[in-house]
């Protein structure tokens, strides 16, 4: 019951909030409820059994029994942290949008909470059709977030985001239906449950096609080069809360999808295609970093850095060993935290100056020292300095990749250097040197206020805790990842015979 509660509480909250009049009340209620939701999700962590790879908190009810579609949700070590990341980021986002969102406040919070349910649902769904429903449900509130509260070209960006994702999902839907039909012929009953899909014997040709169908949907979401161009537009136009949630959680649905669906379902196709994904991952790391380096706009720079960071995730997943997949999962959390924080920080300075042009800044460290410190810590996490969370993830991914393919790992290691280049260069141009164009006009530029510090401090703490005590987090995932890989290897072996 608790898993359903966690999943649907935000939806209920979102809908109920629509009926209140006072904006102020809505904000406070939203914050309190988001915190309550986070506390509730901690119960999942507390009761989680880290010794087993099987699903926990399972709930299963018939939904459309004629087609074997059921309301089937569950949780394992892979989705656990992603769920907590989602519930953790939501109160932060609510607090961060306190002043940034100044119109249609009720609708904004409703969209935010509905989005939260959709994301949580996608992480817990074990039934493929249920997953698809949540997957598509995410689009609507996100579309609204960008389209209503976004920047100047928000409509364009919202459509681009929507259509891109839709194109991918159509192929995924076809593949899901095909799998359901296969279940009917092979298992006797139609079923949409992933656990039943795992049992199927899928011929090679079909594996290739269906893997590509799934992979397209997930690759767009991740996004993997060359399907990434919607991301900079969406990020730049989205309001700060939208960017945070997009970078923080939404993109992870793509990599999560690979781990949950594309790889375990089609082991032979994975064997065949993994090298291409490793190449795309490595290329994405370098390409994203290089393009980020020459961006004049802060938000765009961070958006392209996401392409680079997610390239690491893809690389780690397709290394297909414990180190790589664990690192990938960790990097997903890291990216949610550090890039989320970066977007928050960019949003905070944008609120003050209404400019995101890096060239307009300079010498900010003297004017806003506190802001500079927070930005620096986040930068450290983003460039994976040891002691921060970023290092653990990047290190494990590179180690896993090195085991799988030495050359790919060596090339990916250049991303370490390039990451330092683009982040530190941006940091230097914004914070160091003499006061820039913008600052000479804004004498009263104020340092962070208490609310903003409250937004950032939890993220900063997490950056260090995750960097210094990674085992606290990794222990929970161990059994599930081992199980995932064992399963995959066995299937490859048995099918190759």
């Amino acid at each position, binding site marked *: 019951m608790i898993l359903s509660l966690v999943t649907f509480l935000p939806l209920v909250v979102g809908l109920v909030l629509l009926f209140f009049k006072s904006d102020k009340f809505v904000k406070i209620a939203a914050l309190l409820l988001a915190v309550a939701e986070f506390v509730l999700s901690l119960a999942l962590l507390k009761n989680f059994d880290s010794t087993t790879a099987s699903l926990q908190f399972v709930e299963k009810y018939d939904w459309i029994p004629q087609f074997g579609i059921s309301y089937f949700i569950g949780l394992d070590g892979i989705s656990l942290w992603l769920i907590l990341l989602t519930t953790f980021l939501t109160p932060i986002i609510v607090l961060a949008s306190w002043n940034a969102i100044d119109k249609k406040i009720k609708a904004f919070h409703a969209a935010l909470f509905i989005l939260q349910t959709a994301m949580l649902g996608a992480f817990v769904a074990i039934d493929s059709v249920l997953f698809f429903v949540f997957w598509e449900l995410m689009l609507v509130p996100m579309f609204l977030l960008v389209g209503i509260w976004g920047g100047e070209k928000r409509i364009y960006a919202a459509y681009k985001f929507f*259509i*891109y994702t839709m194109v991918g999902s159509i192929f995924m839907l076809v593949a899901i239906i095909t799998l359901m039909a296969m279940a009917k012929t092979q298992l006797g009953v139609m079923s949409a449950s992933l656990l039943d899909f795992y049992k199927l014997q899928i011929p090679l040709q079909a594996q290739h096609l269906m893997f590509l169908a799934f992979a397209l949907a997930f690759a767009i979401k991740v996004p993997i*080069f*060359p399907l*990434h*161009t919607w991301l900079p537009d969406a990020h730049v136009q989205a309001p700060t809360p939208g960017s945070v949630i997009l970078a923080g959680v939404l993109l992870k649905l793509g990599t999560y999808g690979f781990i949950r669906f594309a790889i375990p379902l089609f082991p032979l196709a994975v064997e065949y295609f993994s090298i291409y994904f490793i190449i795309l991952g490595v290329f994405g790391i370098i*390409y994203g970093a*290089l*393009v980020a*380096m*020459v*961006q004049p706009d802060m938000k765009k720079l961070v958006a392209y850095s996401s392409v680079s960071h997610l390239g690491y995730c893809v690389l780690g997943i397709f290394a297909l*060993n*414990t*180190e790589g997949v*664990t*690192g990938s999962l960790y990097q997903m959390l890291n990216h949610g935290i550090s890039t989320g924080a970066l977007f928050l920080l960019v949003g905070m300075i944008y609120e003050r100056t209404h400019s995101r042009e890096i060239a307009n800044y300079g*010498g900010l*460290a*003297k004017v806003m*020292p506190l802001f500079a410190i927070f930005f620096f810590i986040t930068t*450290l996490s983003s460039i994976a*300095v*040891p*002691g921060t969370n970023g*290092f*653990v993830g990047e*290190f*494990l991914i*590179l*180690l896993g990749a*090195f*085991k799988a393919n030495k050359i790919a*790992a*060596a090339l990916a*290691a*250049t991303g*370490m*250097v390039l990451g*330092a*280049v683009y982040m*530190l*260069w941006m940091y*230097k141009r914004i*914070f*160091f*040197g*003499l006061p820039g164009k913008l600052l000479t006009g804004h004498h009263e530029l104020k340092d962070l206020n208490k609310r903003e510090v409250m937004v950032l401090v939890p993220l900063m703490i997490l950056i260090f805790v995750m960097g*210094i*005590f*990674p*085992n606290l987090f*990794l222990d929970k995932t*161990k059994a599930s990842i081992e199980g995932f890989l064992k399963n995959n290897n066995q299937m490859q072996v048995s099918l190759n015979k």
Partner: protein
Amino acid sequence: MTDKFLIATMLLSPLIGFLINGLLVNYNNKSYLRSGIVATVAAAISFLAAATLFLKLLGVSAPEVVKAHFFEWINVGQFKANAAFVVDHISGIMILIITGVGTLIHLYSIGYMSHDEKPAKYFSYLNLFLFNMLILVLGDNLLLLFVGWEGVGLCSYLLIGFWFTDSEKAKAGMKAFVVNRIGDAGFILGLFLIFILFKTVEFEELAKLTYAPELGWGLLTFATMFLFIGATGKSAQIPLYVWLPDAMAGPTPVSALIHAATMVTAGVYMIVRLNFMFMATPNTMMLIATIGALTAVFAASIGLFQNDIKKILAYSTVSQLGYMFLGVGVGAFKAGMFHLMTHAFFKALMFLGAGSVIHGMHEEQDVRKMGGLSKKMPITYLTFLFGWLAIIGTPLFSGFFSKDEILWKTFASPMGSKFLWFLGVLGAALTAFYMTRLMALTFWGKSRVDKSVHVHESPIVMTLPLVILAVLSLIGGWVGIPEVIGHIFSIPNGWEHWLSKQVVDAAAHGSHLEEWLTMATSVILAGCSAYCAYFIYTKKADALEKLKNQYGKIYNIISNKYYIDELYQKTIVVPLVLLSKWFWSFVDVKIVDRTTYLLADIVRGAGSSLRLMVNGNVQQYALYIVAGMVAVLVVILTR
């Protein structure tokens, strides 16, 4: 006191100092005394703990190592790395140098930073550096070493760019970090290879294994080679040395601590730590020795004509680091470590002395505007003199013993060669020249100081560390007096003995006569070279001008540092930025994004042409129906 407590104290004391100065003190606070005392006390406590631990290792029945396991850091799949620390005979020396010299420099900084705007920030960074450096040398596995390795790089970045309102200084910090990162990427690949080969990265486990010498180009050779790339970054060797001279943008005590005494020697420490592995890969060793020797000569030659007092010392540091690598590269790990220690003393001394000069001259760094300072700053002058005597290799001074040991081993070791020895001696001669030039221009001769500058001797907090370091520069070498001299006075070589538990050198073969001869050669050459410099720069300034005119081209090339920075800029930085711009404006916008537009246009075009069929005329719709029906009929009937 338990070992764990001592190690924890040593590590955490600077960290707590960092937190106090970093978090509790308001960043606008200008109380240099309070923050300085906090930081210095933190460093001193750390030094006391380090000394206690060191003494534990000294006794007759002393344990070989002192270990402390704190917690499991990363444990994924086969990979394990603990937060565990080891004090053994190698790291024992390192922690003494780091905390000892570190404490002195903290003390000195109280005086040096007394006029600064943000002393609390400065001292917090300095403490953080100590913490990271201790992690580097104490970590019981390669990954923990890497943590400290990157951590000190970070502190170096922060301290080089400490006066960040100057864009050039901020840029120097960034350059240091990025160039170090290139090395770090190499290091981490080496770490991966070692893990793949041996399934562990713990030093203790690795030391237990036996390594078959790998004569060709195997994985182990690549592993050590990659680690050495990391070392060239951190320890400023060719081709990654370019960041160190720029790093002089930081406060001078930082240059003394980080960029002379401790951080830059991390590469040497790492190689000594893994000496058993490097010994098994002769190809890498040959590369290390060659790079070391070349760097020693190359950097020394750049040092000849620099005019910034700190830049001269910076190139000197690069050159001296080259000696250390030459030493470890020929299998003389102990000699390399020895030089590391003596260099830490005399180079820290000289940097601090230079800082004292700069402080006394009110931020003037150009040696052409100094001269005759010996009378105005007597203590600084006298202590600097000790440093000078040590670095040019005057017998009895510490630098003599350590440098000579390296040169002799280069000559005699089977892994060394006469050519490398020749380069070493040449470098020593150059060193004597530029250091004497520095002395002559700064302290001797006539004063060229601007009239408006009132030179003053530095306060006692600054001169006290100078005196202590000067004494160490003299006697620091006496722990390792080579056997050939030692047996005359029956002084044992304690250094060799101390390290022999963890370090195995390549056996050197050579007679005592040869050793005396090589020693004499380098001393005489250095002496002549020093005298030349003295003569030219104090007596015959016009002779110098003549030479400059005669060899103008060569002089230009050298004084412009062989245009290496410009070369890197043109061949790496600019093309990379151009490539990135091309990626963005062409690949991203013109190709990838255009392609998606094209797909959208196809769909939209198809839609808009089909739209014309639906024009509202019902009869036309009916016609479509009929036509469709007829078509179906035709298909059915003609089958």
